[in-house]
């Protein structure tokens, strides 16, 4: 079953998204929607698991803008 795992750091407000089990174009659609609402991530990659499982794409997006001191 496709799953999106959002992790929010309550102390910092940092936000991470991992996309599991979604084929390429659909994964891009989800990533596009999240980028539209959050902006471009500081880090965006297809994970090693993606390379091990052809046809299933797993992405990791992190929106971790630096906090001003």
């Amino acid at each position: 079953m496709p799953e999106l795992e959002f992790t929010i750091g309550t102390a910092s407000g940092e936000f991470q998204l991992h996309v599991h089990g979604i084929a390429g174009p659909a994964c891009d659609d989800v990533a596009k929607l999240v980028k539209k609402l959050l902006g471009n991530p500081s880090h965006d990659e297809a994970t090693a698991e993606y390379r091990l499982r052809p046809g299933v794409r797993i992405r990791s997006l992190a929106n971790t803008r630096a906090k001003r001191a």
Partner: protein
Amino acid sequence: MSKYLAYREIVFRDRQLLLDSLADLGFSNVDMGDDLPLYGYQGDRRSETAALVVRRQDVGSGSNDLGFAKSEGGYFPIISEYDKGTLLAGQFLPRLRVAYAERVVETVRKRLRGSVHRVTDGSLVKLRVRY
């Protein structure tokens, strides 16, 4: 007099989600416009302007106006040094970011017609959306 600080690195892209997030924190009365002036706690007009403003009366006793200016990437907060340190026990900006992130998750969940499962692990909140 507390000076204003602009946090350009904290950007909220979507105006409606930002307004909803502010309401989640109890700030539902927001002025909207272009180059709205900001006023300090004594009613003194400051040089800073913003597109979204929570007026000091709605922020708290001794507070200054709280603004969000529009940039190419979205809206960034302009908050006085005093309010940054005191508003919501100094946690206003992190809590606003969390509220905004939760609104983003809810928007995605609705779009996908999915279900969400929430787990809290210390200072981390994990939200799993399945569809």
